[in-house]
C-alpha cells in the first residue's frame, strides 16, 4: 500500500494518489455497516478526496472575501458551506463564527422574549378566573 503514498516517487514520476491509502482505509472502516473495501474502491476514494480538497479550496477562494488579500481564510470556507448546495454537507463542521458578545446578546433577547410570553399567559389566566 506504500506504493501510491507520495506525490513523486524516487524517479520523480508523478504518482496516482498522494494521500496515504492506509489512513483513508481507517476512515472508511470507521463507517458502520461497511464490511470490506476492494483495492480499487480505496484508490478511487483517495483520488476523489484529493479532487474534493482542490475543489473546496478553489471554490472558497474564488467566492471568498479573502481574494483581495490573496489569502484563503476560515471565513471563506464557512461561507462556502452555507451558500453552495454541493458543499452543504459541511455546514455542521464549518459553522459561521460569531462574536461572544453577540451570542450573549442573542441569549439575553431570547430570555426576555420567553419571560414576556409567560407574563401574557398569567394575565389571561387571571382574566378567566
Amino acid at each position, binding site marked *: 500500500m506504500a506504493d501510491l503514498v507520495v506525490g513523486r516517487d524516487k524517479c520523480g514520476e508523478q504518482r496516482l494518489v498522494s494521500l496515504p491509502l492506509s489512513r483513508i482505509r481507517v476512515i472508511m472502516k470507521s463507517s458502520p455497516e461497511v464490511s470490506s473495501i476492494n483495492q480499487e474502491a480505496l484508490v478511487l476514494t483517495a483520488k476523489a478526496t*484529493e479532487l474534493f480538497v482542490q475543489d473546496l479550496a478553489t471554490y472558497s477562494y474564488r467566492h471568498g472575501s479573502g481574494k483581495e488579500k490573496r489569502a484563503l481564510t476560515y471565513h471563506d470556507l464557512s461561507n462556502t458551506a452555507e451558500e453552495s448546495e454541493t458543499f452543504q454537507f459541511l455546514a455542521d463542521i464549518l459553522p459561521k463564527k460569531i462574536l461572544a458578545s453577540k451570542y450573549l446578546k442573542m441569549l439575553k433577547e431570547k430570555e426576555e422574549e420567553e419571560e414576556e410570553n409567560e407574563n401574557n399567559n398569567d394575565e389571561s389566566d387571571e382574566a378567566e378566573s
Partner: protein
Amino acid sequence: MAERPEDLNLPNAVITRIIKEALPDGVNISKEARSAISRAASVFVLYATSCANNFAMKGKRKTLNASDVLSAMEEMEFQRFVTPLKEALEAYRREQKGKKEASEQKKKDKDRKTDSEEQDKSRDEEIDEDEERLEEEEQNEEEEVDN
C-alpha cells in the same frame, strides 16, 4: 478497533500541498483554513463511503467496489469528478497489470536461471568425471612404465 482521534485525520503536509497546487501562486492559507479543509476531507470520505456502501448493499454485495464509488460521486452531486476518476482507474489497472506481468517475468527468469544453473552443474560434474578418467589413465600409464 479503537481509533485514536488523529487516525481519522489526513496528514497536514499532504493536504497543504494539494491546496497550494490548486490555488494561484503566492496565496496565503491560514492555519485555521487548512485545518478546516482537512476536517472537511475526512467528512467527505465518510459521506462517500456511506453513499457507496448503499450502492453495494443494493447490489447485494458486501465489498465496496470501484463502481460503487463512482455512483456515490454522482449521488453526492460531484459528477465533475467522474471523468478524472475513471481515468485514474484505467491508469491504476494498467499499472497493476504491468506489475503482475513484471513479477511473472521475474519468476520465469528465476526458473530459467535455476535450470541453467543445474545444467552448468551437470556439465561441471561431467568435467570432473573426465578429469578423473584422465588421471586414472595417467596412473595406468605410469604403472605400465614402471613395469
